[in-house]
Structures are given as C-alpha cells and as structure tokens.
C-alpha cells in the first residue's frame, strides 16, 4: 500500500455529506495550529440532461433510476442516482428515493442488512439495505475522489468517518462494514460533537486555551439537518498541559433543522388549504424550500415581520398557477423557537407520545420536537450519576447550521442559565470561533492530524456503558420470565485498544446452538465497573441489538455438549466493541456478533 498522502474526513450527514482533506506533512513536528490547510472535495454528481457537475456537498439521497441515463465516468451501469439529482428526482417520485439512510443504520427496530429502502416504496422498486445505501455513498465519494486524485486512491489515504456520538456499538460496526463494502478497509471513526470540538480547537481567531480552563465541562450541542447530538467534554490537566476528556454522550435524537422547515411548510400549507386551495405533495416540497428561506430571512432580519412564500404553478401557466401565502415572525417565534426551544425546567422530560411535532412513520423520529427538553433529560441523567458536576456544564459549544440563527443560541443559553442559577451555579460561557457548517468534516481532518501526533487529542473511549443480559436461575413460574441481571462488559470511557477479561465468571454455552445474549446500553451509569453484575435493571438501561455467536461442534465436542466459557471484551483502536467467548482451555474463541437483523 502506498503511503497515505492525505488525511481525509468524511462527514456522513443525515441529509448532506462532505469530504474534507489536508495533505500530510511528513517529518515536521509542527503544532496543530500550523497544520496544513483543509480543503473540500468537489464531488462530481449527476445532473439532469446527461450533465455532470461538482459541488462541495453531496446530498444524502439515492434515487432508483427510471429512464435517466447514467453519465458518471464510473459505474456506468449503476441502477441508482446519488446526490443532487437524486434529491431533485426524489421530490418528484418519492417512492423511489432513499433519504436519511444514516438514521436507518441505527434503527434497532429493523433489519439493517435487509433490502428495505425506500421504506415506503412500492414492492416492485429495487430495494437496498441501509448498510448498502451507506456503502453506496462512501463508494461514490471514493470514485469522486479518484476523479480528482487519480494517483492517490482514497483507500490508500488516512480516512476518518464521522458518526453521531449516540451511535451504539452495533451501528458503529455497520459504518465500518459499509466502508469495507465500498473498498475502504481501514477507516477510523470519530463522533460528530468531538469533531466539532476539534474544529473549534483548530481555529485561530479565538484560541481555545484562552476560552476554557482546567475543570471546565463543555457541553457540545450539535443540531444538524436531521439529528441532534449532545456530548460533554471535560477539560483536565496533566503535566501542566490541558487535556480533553469526552465524558458523556446523549441518545440518538432524530430531530433537526429539516423538522423546522417541515413545520413551517405544514403551517403554510394549512393556511393555503384554509383558503380553499388543494396542496399537492410536490407543492409541499416546494413550500418547505420556500419556508426555509423565509425562516432564514426572518431569523436574520429583525426588521421584517413577514416573508411571502410562493409556489409557482407547475404547468406552463406559471403565473396563473402560482399560489402564495406568507410566513410571519409570529409563526417562526411560536412554532420554531417555542416549538423547538421552549423554556422548560431541568426536570422536564420530552413527551413520549405522538401528540405534537411533525413526524414521519417508520424512522424513530423524536416524538417531542423540544430540543431543550431533550437537553434537560440529558443533563438530568448526568446528575443522577456519581459525577454530578457533569450536569452543570461551564461552557457551551454550538454546532450545526441551525445555530447560525442567533435567536436559537440565545434562547438555549437562557434556558441553561435558568437551570444553572436555580442550582446556584455560574452562568454558562459560550465558546466562540467555530464555523457552524462543515465544522464536523474539518474536525475529522484535525482529528486525523491529532492522531498522527500533531495536536491535542480528546480522550473519549467507549461512549456509553454496555451490558449483557444474564438470566437469573430461579424455579419456573408460569407466565414469569426469570429476572434479568446486567453484566457490565464495557465501562463508559474505557480507552480504545483495551482488552479486558471478565474474571471469576463463566457461562455454560451449548454447542451446536446459537449463543444469545440480550444487549443493553446506558449513558448515565458511570459508576458501574467492568465485570460488575447489576441485579436491578431500571429504566436507565436501554436495550439494543442482540449479541449472538454460532457455536459449531469442534474436536471432541458434539452438538448438545455444554462448554464453559469466559468473556473477553476488546475495545478496538477505531472505537468498536468486540466481545469474545473463550473456552476454559483457552483454545477456542467465539465472537459475539451484533445481530442487527431482528428487532430488539
């Protein structure tokens, strides 16, 4: 393999993907701040009318080709269109478009390796699995890269892929798998809020060392197009140098800027329908584009009280067919600001039912659109823990296009301050200097530089604690399942590269059968130690994919025999979790694989 010439950061966004890169300077030991300039790949994409155009952003849409002729220089017999044209055609033929593939990847309710996308598509359409969809995006980026750098294949570069911090071990595995399917055999993963933090560290206008001090806990709030992600990073000190520790991550929340646009589009549509006009699906899509523009105008220009939203006629009578209404400042303030960032108490929990908010079926979209309530729950969870101080962050770092609007930043700061003052803490400090869009892919590249020793590195480790469900032996009682105990197999924060063995505990597994463990995660049980058995499982545990291992017969043991095994846990360098059953004689190992097929 040729030596890597570039560090490449791939931001696999829910709605948009970006690839950034910087040259690796060999031999120099510069401080990270002097690192190479970060560039964005111009990604070649199909356009209508047999044209090809490039853009820094690859919209995360896949469209099953109808009669459109493939025009990209690579895979000319491809059945799918990826990118800008796919989004455009998807608005017109919604049954054939795949969107939010990334969110499907962490949906434990579906088989993520089964061809189920597009989810609502007709059965005649060629379907693909969320895993395949992800692989297709990465493959597209790989080919686009090759167009730009024919001599330096992407598989030979140092590639870092960003994932939501809330991705569990199974979803992380799937991202690595997708990269492998696309031909990238070794990629590193980095959590998006961490990447955003790296991006902030790398900026020079407001040096980060002047903005935070030892002991500070930084809350990273990342509201993207489709997902909301929270992380806490603690600033510590060792040998007189500031260190960064990622101490907590939130759960996966499918909520973002797109929801805001959709909310306004529904308001506008309702307004139009009230005047007796019928709004088609195509018009709703157009409305949503218009509403985003209107939202941006109203949020940035405090002079304006309303912005007209217009959808031109679809037929050749463009003027006669125009429908028109407006979005007012009130709409934005009442539905967007109050809907997504309502004032709330730290004890408020997001609603679990479908009473409010805009939802689409099948993907587990957040039931409650209130980002502030999700945040309250996240911080509250930290307070229930041994490290109560994590519930009271000292500083906040915003990321995601949504926070370009000052009103959202100010509102969220006001809400957090109200919680802090209530507990007698100092007000939160807003960290300055981050570039809100593309920060993630920039940060990924900075992380790549940090890994090669050119900059400060966030110590992260395992993002949450993981548990295997162990059944308690008890006399059979009809109708009652034996109570489940949780065996901690990964403690939150365990560093990458650790190999741990569960001591003094062995399990009898039956040869010839599939060993099966229920698998749980928790992001608020920091005090549980590795190997500890927790007898009472409360709501702080969240069940995720099953872990299974095939146990084929081997020398001397036949089907039905019982073999005693011990558990070994490996936290890989790229941040994935691997659990092995090891026979007592140490001669046989079975890997417990995530069973992403069946619903948990």
């Amino acid at each position, binding site marked *: 393999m040729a030596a890597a010439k570039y560090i490449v950061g791939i931001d696999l966004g829910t709605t948009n993907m970006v690839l950034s890169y910087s040259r690796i300077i060999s031999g120099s030991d510069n401080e990270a701040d002097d690192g190479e300039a970060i560039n964005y790949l111009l990604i070649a994409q199909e*356009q209508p*009318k047999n*044209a*090809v*155009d490039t853009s820094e952003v690859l919209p995360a849409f896949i469209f099953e080709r109808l009669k459109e002729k493939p025009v990209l220089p690579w895979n000319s017999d491809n059945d799918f269109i990826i990118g800008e044209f796919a989004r455009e055609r998807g608005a017109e033929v919604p049954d054939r478009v795949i969107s939010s593939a990334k969110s499907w990847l962490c949906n434990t309710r579906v088989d993520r390796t089964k061809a189920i996308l597009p989810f609502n598509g007709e059965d005649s359409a060629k379907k693909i699995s969320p895993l395949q969809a992800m692989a297709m995006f990465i493959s597209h980026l790989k080919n686009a890269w090759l167009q730009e750098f024919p001599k330096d294949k992407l598989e030979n570069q140092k590639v870092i892929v960003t994932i939501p911090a809330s991705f569990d071990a199974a979803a992380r595995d799937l991202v690595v798998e997708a990269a492998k399917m696309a031909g990238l055999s070794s990629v590193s993963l980095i959590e998006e809020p961490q990447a955003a933090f790296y991006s902030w560290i790398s900026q020079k206008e407001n040096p980060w060392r002047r903005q935070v001090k030892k002991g500070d806990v930084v809350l990273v709030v990342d509201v993207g197009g489709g997902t909301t992600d929270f992380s806490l990073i603690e600033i510590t000190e060792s040998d007189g140098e500031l260190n960064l520790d990622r101490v907590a991550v939130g759960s996966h929340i499918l909520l973002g800027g797109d929801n805001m646009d959709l909310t306004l589009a529904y308001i506008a549509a309702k307004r139009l329908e009230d005047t007796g006009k019928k709004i088609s699906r195509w018009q709703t899509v157009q409305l949503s584009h218009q509403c985003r523009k209107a939202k941006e105008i109203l949020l940035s220009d405090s002079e304006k009280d309303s912005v007209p939203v*217009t959808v*031109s006629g679809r037929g050749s009578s463009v*003027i006669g067919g*125009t429908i*028109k209404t407006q979005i007012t400042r009130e709409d934005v303030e009442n539905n967007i600001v109050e809907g997504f960032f309502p004032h709330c108490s730290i004890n408020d929990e997001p609603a679990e039912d479908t009473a409010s908010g805009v939802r689409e079926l099948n993907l587990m979209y957040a039931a409650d659109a209130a980002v502030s309530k999700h945040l309250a729950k996240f911080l509250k969870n930290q307070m229930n823990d041994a490290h109560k101080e994590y519930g009271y962050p000292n500083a906040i770092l915003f990321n995601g296009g949504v926070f370009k609007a000052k009103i959202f930043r100010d509102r969220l700061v006001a809400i957090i301050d109200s919680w802090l003052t209530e507990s007698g803490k100092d007000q939160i400090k807003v960290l300055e200097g981050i570039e809100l869009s593309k920060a993630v892919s920039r940060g990924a590249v900075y992380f790549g530089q940090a890994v090669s020793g050119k900059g400060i590195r966030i110590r992260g480790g395992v993002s949450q604690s993981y548990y295997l469900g162990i059944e308690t032996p008890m006399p059979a009682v009809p109708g009652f399942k034996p109570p489940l105990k949780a065996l901690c197999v990964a403690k939150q924060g365990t560093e990458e590269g650790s190999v741990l063995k569960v001591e003094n505990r062995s399990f009898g597994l039956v040869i010839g059968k599939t060993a099966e463990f229920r698998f749980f995660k928790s992001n608020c049980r920091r005090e549980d130690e590795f190997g500890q058995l927790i007898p009472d499982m409360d709501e702080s545990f969240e069940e995720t994919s099953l872990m299974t291992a095939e146990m084929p017969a081997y020398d001397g043991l036949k089907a039905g025999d019982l073999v005693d095994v011990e558990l070994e846990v490996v936290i890989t360098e790229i941040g994935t979790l691997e659990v092995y059953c090891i026979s007592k004689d140490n001669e046989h190992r079975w890997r417990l694989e995530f069973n992403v097929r069946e619903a948990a």
Partner: protein
Amino acid sequence: MINIVIYRLKSFKKCLEVITDMKKLVARINLVLILVFFAGGYYVSVNQIEPLSGLIKQLQEFVHLVTAVEAYACVYYVSLLVLLFSVFVSLYAAFEGVSKKEVALQKEIKLLKEDAEDFENKKVEYFTEIKKLNLRIQELQISLEQKVSADKYEKLQAEAEENANALEGAKAKSDELTDKIKKLSQKIEDLNSEKAKLTEQERDLSEKLKDSQAKLASANANLKGGKDTVPPAAYQIFYLLQKEGRLIDMLHENIGDYDDETLGGAFRKLHEDLQELIKERFILEPVLNEEEGNTITLDSIDPDSVKVSGKVPAEGPFTGELIHKGWRLKECKLPEMVDGWKGDVIAQAEIEI
C-alpha cells in the same frame, strides 16, 4: 536337536521294552529249564541213564562233598549262568545296534546339510551366471537389432535418398508456391489494413467534418446569430432558465388577465429563482464600475465594450453621463455535458402518475 533327543528317547524306550520282553522270556525259559532239569535229573537218577547218571556220579566222586541233588543244582546253576551270559551278550548287541543306527542317521543329516549348502552356493552361482547370460543375451539382441537395422538403414537410406530427391523437387515447387501465396496474402493484408485505415480515417474525417461542421455552424450561429443551427450551450442555458426560473413559461404566458398583485407575487418568486441561477452559474461584472448617472471621461473607446451616443467627437477624450454600466460575462459555470445536447427539448413534458 529336539528331534534327535526324541529319537533317542524313543529308541531307549524300545530297548526297555525289549528288555522286559526278554526278562519274561528268560523267566519262562528259566522255569522250563528248572522243571526240565529236575525232571531230567529225576529221570536220569531213577533210570540210571548213562552217561548222565555216570557224569553225575563222577562229579559226586570228584567233589566228595556233594549229594546228588547238590550236584544237579550245580549243573543247573552253571548252565543258568551260561544262559544269562548269553542273554546279556545279546542285549548288548541290541543296544549297540540302536546307537550305531543313530550315529549313522546323524552322519546322514550332516551330509544332507552339507549337500543343501552346496546346493545353495551353486544356486547363487547359477543365478549370477543366468544374469550374466541374460545381459549377454540383451547385448546380443541389441547388436543383432543394430545389425539388422544397419542393414535395413542402408536400404532405407537409399530409398530415402531417392525420396528426398523427389521431395526436394516437390518442396522447391511448394516453397515457390507458398512464397507466392505469402506475398499475395501480405499484399491482401496490407491492402486490408490500408483499407481499414482509410475507412477509419474516413470515419474520423467524417466525424471531424461533422464536428467541424457543427462547430462551424455553432460558431457561425454564435457569430451571426445564424438561423439554421443552435449552439448546444444555447439549449443548456434555455433549459436552466426555464427549469430554475420558468422564464419560457413566464414570457409565454398571457399576463393581461392578471391583476398587478397576482403578477407581483408570482414575479417576485420567479425573479428570486432566476437571480439565484444567474448568481450560481453566470459570473457577471459591470463593464464600467461606476455609478450610473455620474459623468465620466474616457481617453479612448473600444466599441465592443462601450457604446457612445449623442454628440460624439471624432477623437477622445470622451466625456459624458454613464447611462448603463454594461455587463461582462466573466465565467459561465454550466454543468459538463457528457454526450452533448441530444434533441431540441429544453423543457420536458411532465406527466404525474
């Protein structure tokens, strides 16, 4: 060895049997003899049979001491001793015979063994001999064959020479022919490739011709705004203006029936969309970056970029009011067309199913 022992044991047993048989015989003979003697003695003494009774009397007189009975007994014992001796002698002779037989057998075995050894040795000798003979036979065979083939070879050579002569003649002829054929096929090939080249060239040329015709046409069209050909970029630009800003629809629509408010609302949207398109795809800048309405002075005028009107002097400097600052198209960022523009459609008909 064991056999010998058994044999010996057997012979010994036989001896014992002989001995017991003899004992019985001796006892019987003994008994008969005793009876005979006593009967004989009695008969002799009673009947005074001569010479025996005289012998006995003589014996009696000779010894003086013995009675007649004692004398008989003595004769009896003497004759018994003689008998016993003879029995022993015969037994010994029997024994001697057995052991002599054994020794003779052993000697025979030894001799046989020696014979067998000799035989083995001889066998080995014979085998080596046979081998040698075989080799020899082979040699002989080979030499025989050689001899035979040598004989035949001579004959064959002679034949072959004849044939070769004939063949040479034929070969020379065929060589000539193949040469001719080769030359001919070479020529054909040359001609074919030439033809292929020519057709390729022709194709290239015709394509080039087409291209240049198209280019010429488009250049002509660009130059003159020609009426017969449309440059591909024109299709593309019209396509984009219609797709993004609905320009064709807008210009084609009869707007006389709409009130100004409807018009304004609709136009605002279209204006916005078109503006976005222009910003994204066409980089424009003013020819003269001055505010319109200002008075400006130019030393010279390039008629392609500045148009003057009013009272125009023959020579510069030209001073006047800037009416329009003009536009330059600095860059045209059109998507790259893979196979050029196909057909003449700039806005597809749309059907929703």
